[in-house]
């Protein structure tokens, strides 16, 4: 170890893995439906996309976790974003690509991606 910068580089590289263990009281929670229906519809790549993107962007107060079936199996994979003080946002029929956009638009910039929400995709909408 020759310099503080070298130490800092190791710190930054491992930091994201360790902060995961401190986020139990995070501000925003991203819940990915991982019941049988969710897994069958492809929720796991979605979950992993969220985890990786949140870590990559170093979002400290966001916790990504799984949840069970919330009863709208035809819309799986379902992702709920809960921010204290805001209304819960439910995204449906998610894909890893859509997940990246949710992280960028919603979690980073605070703009709900309306076109992915259940309101826009409900049967009979439009």
């Amino acid at each position, binding site marked *: 170890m*020759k310099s503080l910068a070298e*130490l800092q580089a190791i*710190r930054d590289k491992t930091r994201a893995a360790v902060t*995961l*263990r401190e*986020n139990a009281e995070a501000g925003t929670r991203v819940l990915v439906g991982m019941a049988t229906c969710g897994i069958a519809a492809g929720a796991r790549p979605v979950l992993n996309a969220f985890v990786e993107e949140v870590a990559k962007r170093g979002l400290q107060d966001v916790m990504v976790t799984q949840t069970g079936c919330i009863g709208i199996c035809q819309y799986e994979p379902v992702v709920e974003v809960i921010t204290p003080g805001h209304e819960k946002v439910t995204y449906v029929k998610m894909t890893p690509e859509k997940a990246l956009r949710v992280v960028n638009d919603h979690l980073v910039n605070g703009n709900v991606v309306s076109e992915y929400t259940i309101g826009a995709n409900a049967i009979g909408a439009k």
Partner: protein
Amino acid sequence: MFRSNVLVCGGTGCTSSNSEQIIEKLKEEIKAQGLEKEVNVIRTGCFGLCALGPIMVVYPEGAFYSRVTPEDVPEIVSEHLLKGRIVKRLLYQETVVDDSTTKSLNETTFYAKQMRIALRNCGVINPENIDEYIAQDGYAALGKALTEMTPQEVIDLVLASGLRGRGGAGFPTGRKWQFAAANKAEQKYACCNADEGDPGAFMDRSVLEGDPHSVLEAMAIAGYAIGANQGYIYIRAEYPIAVKRLQIAIEQAREYGLLGKNIFDSGFDFDIDIRLGAGAFVCGEETALMTSIEGKRGEPRVRPPFPAVKGLFGVPTVLNNVETYANIPQIILKGADWFRSIGTEKSPGTKVFALGGKITNTGLVEVPMGTTLREVVEEIGGGVPGGHHFKAAQTGGPSGGCIPAKLIDTPIDYDNLIAIGSMMGSGGLIVMDETTCMVDIAKFFLEFTVDESCGKCTPCRVGTKRLLEILNKITSGNGTLEDIDKMEELCYYIKENSLCGLGQTAPNPVLSTLKYYRDEYEAHVVEHRCPAGACKALTNYSIEADKCKGCTLCARNCPVGAISGSVKQPHVIDTTKCIKCGVCMEKCKFGAVVRK
């Protein structure tokens, strides 16, 4: 990138209740479910709540599972890790608020009043992975000291923080460093005392098992401050997990160049080696410890000269306790004012205690100095189980004394404990209830010191033996009031004349129990009675004829056939056969068996 971290306690407590098997089973199940790229299993150090082990915590949810068995693992993996449904029945019950909500661990009574500085990484990081320590700002303090501070500035900072030695005596750490730095010599040493010998104490072991790098980093800082380039950790061989993790940590630090030559390109060299002790209590005494490192028989010598002048191999040496070192990196990073803002004026910072004895939450706690004994025992410790009452707490192990129930509101710090006849000690805290006989407790600790006395000086070698003989006489009912007075005089004699700390403090358990429980001693010699019913020679069991229903349960359970009587007739105990095991009293459903 793992989406979930499963932390399993790999401390000695949880390891002995099968956490290794749980880790294996976890990895197996995770692989079977195809989650090995998503879920990371980490073996950590101690979480502190040893009574509920084996412990497993799953992040990011922060679900705290207690008393997990290998059979529970498939359910945790398929329900929680795969489908996100927390397995409620295995959660630490205090974290469950209602069916759908759980509260964070930091809000439970066990953790709420704790403040973790020395234990900050225990149960959080993988102690066998240096990267995780670095991610928690590890080695940043060493970097700061080497690149931004002079050795004197480091010493001044430690002095200003008011940090006192956590091994028990409470000598200011900064002054120790100052003395060693002031003595000019070509070779100096910075050593670590990890010879934790008090019965029931495991603070240092837990730090070394859960966060070994913090001690290595602090030793390097101490080396820089006093001008030493070699350190030794003296640890007992009975701590195999701690030794193994230390070895791994030293290797990793060397690989990264955080130990070795020219650290941070500052021109400072420092390396650390481990020396294993054979488990002699006296080797926790600093001069005996250094004699043992030198390869000689572990015996103390006269001080002065103090180690800061003439220590290991005759050169200036700094010797600090594990927990003291664990505080150093945080002090360097956060400053003296931060450290002083915690604890009391004369005892800043926190102290780790190993709670044991008659207490619900056996385990490891770290509280700010000045926390009262009541908070530690009743709130964090969960009180005395089984409907019994708190009688006293023993701090400082065989060198300390007891704190009686009437002083339970004493704020714990170095000076308060000494004022009431005990001492901080390394941090063992043994809780006793009304079934504990204080004479018996004094005898227990004396038996320990008699065994552990190295025999070099007469007051300790012969004095403690004579003390124990008098205590045996008292607990067997043959003591006299003169014996008590003689014993007290002998105590002061041993204290004043012994060569090292072992002998000087050995009479403390007797003196402090005499101070607060002289009536119990007197009951033993005058009335030939043990008030707590613990001394067998003075206890007799009998059956009250009017309460006995003649159910024969006691007679059937008596291991020596001392109880006779026919069905539906009152039974009788033959005291000549009775071995006073108390089984009859336990079994009787009518409260007919009495102990006097």
